[in-house]
């Protein structure tokens, strides 16, 4: 069953993703960290599906679909920013400062 180890791995991966989002400045890396968090959640869905039935698997497909769409939009935005600023360092991007 490996439920406990699977959930533990999921938590570790998620925390890594959070840490990456919080600490890194590069937009691409940040983006990958978000993907990491999504997939950590996917792992926990799959692990728990063994207990609770197929709906967990179905949810994983939804998450993957959304992640793919988000990747497409997100990368397009990053390319747009890069063309504009010649940089993907988030420290330089502060247009929304109040």
């Amino acid at each position, binding site marked *: 069953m490996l439920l406990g180890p699977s959930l533990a791995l999921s938590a570790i991966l998620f925390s890594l993703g*959070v840490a990456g*989002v*919080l600490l890194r*400045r590069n937009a691409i890396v*940040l983006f990958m960290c978000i993907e990491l968090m999504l997939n950590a959640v996917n792992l926990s869905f799959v692990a728990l599906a063994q207990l609770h039935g197929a709906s967990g698997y179905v949810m994983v497909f939804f998450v993957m679909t959304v992640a793919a769409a988000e990747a497409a939009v997100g990368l397009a935005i990053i390319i747009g920013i890069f063309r504009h600023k010649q940089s993907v360092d*988030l*420290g330089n*991007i*502060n*247009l*929304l*400062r*109040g």
Partner: protein
Amino acid sequence: MTSLVWLTVALPLAGFLANGALAIRRPAAKDAVSYIGVGVLIAAFIVSVGVFIDLLKSPPHSPHIITLWRWLPVGPLQLDLAFQVDQLSAVMLLVVTGVGSLIHLFSVGYMKSDPGYARYFAYLNLFVVFMLVLVLGSSFPVMFIGWEGVGLCSYLLIGFWFNDKANADAGKKAFIVNRIGDFGFMVAMFLIWHHLGTLTFTGMTDRAPAVFASGSAAVTAITLFLFLGCTGKSAQIPLYTWLPDAMAGPTPVSALIHAATMVTAGVYLVARTNVLFALAPVSSTVVAGIGALTALFAATIALRQYDIKKVLAYSTISQLGYMFIGVGTGAYASGVFHLVTHAFFKALLFLGAGSVIHAMHHAYHATHSHADAQDMRNMGGLKQYMPATFWLMLIGTLAIAGVPPFSGFFSKDEILAGAFARGGDLLIYYVFYAMGILAALLTAFYMARLLTMTFLGENRTGEQERHHLHEAPPVMTGPLIVLGVLSAIGGMINLPPLVGGGAWLEHWLEPVTARAHQFFALEMPHGQTEYFLVGGAVAISLLGLFAGYRATLARKIVPASESAEDTGVARVLNRKYYVDEVYDAIIVRPLVWLSRTVLWRVVDQGVVDGAAVNGTAKLSRGLGWLGSRLQTGQVGVYVVLFLVGALWILHAMVR
């Protein structure tokens, strides 16, 4: 026919709409305007006569209520827009539409060359609409529509020639002074609703005797507030000052609105709410007292006015005072009687004055003179140029002075006899009676003076102007003749038993006043006392007429432009006791000062603009600035905040 009473309102309303449309689109279509304006009034008069004949055939004990539609269904207040047809409103209906028709007809001649002809008739029609709503309304709020509406039309017509600032100011003054009275009317209405739970006149008549103890504070307050409304609308002390200024309007307007109909609305209101006044003896005494004071006070001012319309204006105020003595005494029928006869003879006098002014104006216009066409010092000897007007105005003068058998004699005598009779219960009424007699003397005096200065003696109009003086056209003298006949024989409707009459009007109004007379019945004087009173009154009026005639003839009068100013008492009277100046000093100017320095600079600019409007803006801006400090633009910061928030929610959920 009674159920068709709404036509009397609808016809002038249609006339107003048609004339209003013509005033905007085709101001030059004067023929159409004349036919519509006068036609709707005559049609309304015919309907009124029909309604009246219906009532004559079967006099109802309780009023006919003609409900048009449900107006205000609000919780316990279920108010209909309904008309009340009973003996009192039928009499008023006839007066308003009858005298109104004659004055409309007169206006065709008087206003012929005025560019605002269509607008004038539109306003005049609208006035009749509101006056009839006032008279016919079956409840206080419906009456109030009319009450406010006639005030509006009065304002519009006083300021009819608004190019002259003085006229526009006079209109504003009438409107603003009336607001004070309307405040009283509204407070009275609220109190009636609070105490009686009804606003209809029938409901009031039924419930008031059970709810109010006679002389209780509540009913006294209600009636005093109602009377405050009357002092505004009917130009009594202390709110009379607007009426003399209202003479700035066209003369037929003065005849219709400021003599015959609108200003009598207060008297009508007291007669309509007679139950309440009968339950409040203190208020009734106040009504009679203010009436007596006003009658005397205004009569003294009229003694020294030179403007022919001003004399008549003060005379109107004085005669309205008489009506209030009547209704204040509890002799409601005699108050209404004087209202009717006054409508006849004062409309006659005003329209006669209108003919004179018309002739004078044309004479001065022909020679391009700028002399005052209304100043009696510029008139004199007009009898030979306009004999018909002279004889008709003589009838009016005899009627108002109270010379038998003209109409004013009977109505004025009735009122004075009533006051004398009440003196038996309450001594102060003897004082009111004495004031009334004195006012009657002065009335006869100033009317004789008016007639003498205008029509007798040497002509003072001017050498060239004299040839242009001429009698008014038939469309103007026609209505005058009808009013002259009515002024002469109008007393017939209420001939006292003394001369073998049946006091028809008094019996006719009995169903309306019956409830009030349960609380006190007025015992009119009989026999020797009555002969004595009548003889005294006639002697007084003849003396006044004679004295006025002789005193005026004896004086050397010169045209206004050459006259020196009066001195002494005459000057005080000519300046109307300086009441306007006093009001200006103690009310208007402090109010303007208060508005300008305190309300404008401190309250409006300081508190409202400064603290409230700009303060709110500054507060929002400050809070916005604080909030904007969070928006660093750094995605990392947002993520941290987001995470903290997510964790906090998670914590709250799993706890």
